[in-house]
């Protein structure tokens, strides 16, 4: 952003000229910046997306990495020691190894620190050649931010029933849970915009047809439609899967879930776009374009569609948290991307209600709910901030 374009550098007494020189994007950004809570939301979101993108580097373990011996199922978060137990002085952080035993009363497995054993300092920038990862699917590496030497292990947020590190899985899970909502919104947007503009522009029978179609989709409770669609489409025998080749890869299941979410969610968007287009169609500039001989398609997509842009941006931002919640819910039911190749936050929470798990003994399994909460909250804050920033009545 060029500093000399800011109003303070312009000659005084000419605010009108300053306002004239700004693009809408610039005005909106300046308004948005004054909205402190929304700004905080934006920063937190950026951090979360970065953490998901660099999950391989930040996570000490692989997504599905676990060892059978020594047993590490349902291990509570590892205690990290910051002080030397003998001298009481602050030292380099270290951990101990753990041994497991059964509680004689509750029969629960209990883990005990071996404080007599050697200390394992936490090391930074460790190479783990047997656990390579890719960043954004492009750069391969095996450098991890931190780790400890075997046989000690560091589980910041404990482990699940198989002894997989929850901290690492939450990071990897962000790759699914944070992106699926954003992608589904685009599917929904494409459908909603296309049909909304067409319905609003042509009116009459075409309009009626699309509005009835939306009513029909809306008439089935969304969750049930989602459940049925997701189950059927994930079945390897369904026609779409056979189109792709019989064995569905993880990427295809992922896409399938995106499509399902987008398909169920486009109705409301189409309806609002339609009513916007209905009013824009009567505007002078649209009439003028028509009178000048512009084709229908040109008027529709060149003149009417951009008129809905600011509105669409706000709707979009406010729709993403809804999609995130839906994906998480589907995964919680076991209908999202599958266990083997993803760690969606919903799927992680599913571990907490699995058969034979009593939550009071393994409360750390609920940690994956916190990033869901944060992501949805921040998207909502950003959406509200954007809405106020676009609204000329709320200019500050």
């Amino acid at each position, binding site marked *: 952003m060029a500093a000399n374009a800011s109003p303070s550098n312009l000659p005084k007494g000419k605010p009108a000229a300053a306002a004239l020189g700004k693009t809408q994007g610039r005005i909106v950004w300046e308004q948005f910046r004054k909205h402190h809570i929304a700004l905080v939301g934006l920063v937190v979101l950026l951090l979360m997306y970065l953490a998901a993108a660099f999950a391989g580097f930040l996570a000490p373990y692989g997504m599905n990495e676990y060892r059978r011996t020594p047993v590490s199922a349902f291990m509570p978060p590892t205690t990290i020691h910051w002080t030397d137990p003998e001298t009481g002085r602050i030292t380099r952080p270290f951990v101990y190894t753990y041994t497991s035993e059964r509680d004689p009363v509750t029969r629960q497995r209990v883990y005990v620190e071996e404080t007599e054993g050697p200390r394992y300092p936490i090391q930074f920038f460790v190479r783990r050649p047997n656990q390579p990862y890719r960043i954004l699917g492009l750069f391969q590496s095996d450098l991890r931010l931190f780790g400890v030497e075997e046989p000690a292990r560091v589980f910041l947020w404990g482990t699940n029933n198989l002894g997989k590190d929850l901290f690492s899985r939450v990071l990897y899970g962000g790759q699914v849970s944070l992106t699926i909502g954003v992608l589904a919104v685009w599917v929904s947007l494409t459908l909603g915009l296309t049909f909304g503009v067409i319905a609003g522009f042509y009116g009459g029978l075409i309009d009626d047809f699309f509005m009835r179609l939306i009513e029909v989709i809306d008439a089935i409770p969304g969750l049930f439609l989602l459940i049925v669609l997701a189950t059927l489409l994930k079945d390897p025998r369904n026609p779409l899967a056979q189109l792709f080749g019989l064995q569905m890869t993880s990427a295809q299941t992922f896409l399938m879930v995106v499509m399902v979410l987008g398909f169920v969610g486009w109705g409301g968007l189409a309806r609002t776009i339609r009513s916007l287009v209905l009013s824009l169609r009567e505007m002078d500039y649209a009439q003028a374009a028509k009178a000048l001989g512009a084709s229908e398609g040109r008027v529709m997509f060149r003149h009417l569609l951009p008129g809905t842009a600011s509105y669409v941006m706000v709707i979009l931002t406010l729709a993403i948290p809804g999609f995130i919640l839906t994906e998480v819910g589907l995964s919680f039911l076991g209908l999202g991307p599958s266990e083997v190749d993803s760690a969606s936050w919903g799927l992680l929470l599913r571990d907490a209600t699995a058969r034979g798990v009593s939550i009071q003994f393994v409360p750390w399994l*609920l940690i994956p709910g916190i990033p869901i909460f944060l992501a949805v909250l921040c998207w909502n804050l950003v959406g509200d901030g954007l809405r106020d920033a676009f609204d000329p009545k709320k200019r500050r």
Partner: protein
Amino acid sequence: MFGYVVRRFFHLIPTFIGATLLAFLISQLVPGDFLTQRALEPNVRQETIDRMRAQFGLDQPVLVQYVRWMSSLVQGDLGMSFSSNQPVMNVIRRPIQNSLYLVVFATVMLWLMAVPLGVFSAVRQYTLGDQLVSAVSYFGLAIPNFFFAQVLVLCLFLLRSFTRETFGFSQLLFPVAGMTSNGWENFTPWHQFWDIMWHMLLPGFVVATASIAGFTRVLRGQMIEYLGSDFIRTARAKGLGSRSITYKHALRPAIIPFIAGIGALLPSLIGGAGLVEIVMAWPGITPRLLDAITRQDIYVVLGFLVISSLLLMVGNLISDLLLAVTDPRIRFS
């Protein structure tokens, strides 16, 4: 008024046909049916399979199956459940009832919580209390229902271990799973009713929280708008008390959109309740639906879809009618 009701009712029919057709087509997306699974069992003969297939009409083309199913649906017959060999209606009646209990209870709870909160934050605009309400409503908006349920269950368990150690009181404060206590069948009817209400408190509360946020925020905006309008100033000038102004003059018009919203609320509540049902072992629609899907019990799945969409449409109709009754500005044309 009567003409309006009839017209609205007939308007539902094409939507209903469309929705059932859509549901039916989706259910046909998977090649094979529940008999394909059974055919893999070694002790089942091919003739038996063929006979059953003909008996259920599974050998017919999709459209024929749809028309058959639809015509028996109109007569109130939803077909047979493959897996339990009973009429679908018997299989799905209880779960639907149970889900409705929960959703209606949650709606009542929502109104009881959201209306006072909305009015409060409108009257005390920009005070600490107002900001607290909006902070809490953001919280309710962002927390996934099922996660909230899990957290509450955990809190209750932790509370129990606390009270057990300090007071020797080892009961859970609220029931966290199921709909009835042990031996419910032998209770008196009154006791049975209270037992269900008692079990409903926690899941109902969780389902309601998700919608409180939106409700409170919109009600607050509406109230603020009406409180600044001319007729309120007139009322004040006449010397009316502030209580009467708030509740009689401002709240009444402000609440109207929510009456229209009841219909729209039902689907979101049914959906939202679904995941809570799973966490808290509520014997409602969603657990049974998932079960039926894994068994490929197509007619049970369809039965759930059809009845729930019927409920949804009737809910919408009722809220439109309520709106027409409560808002004198609405014309019946």
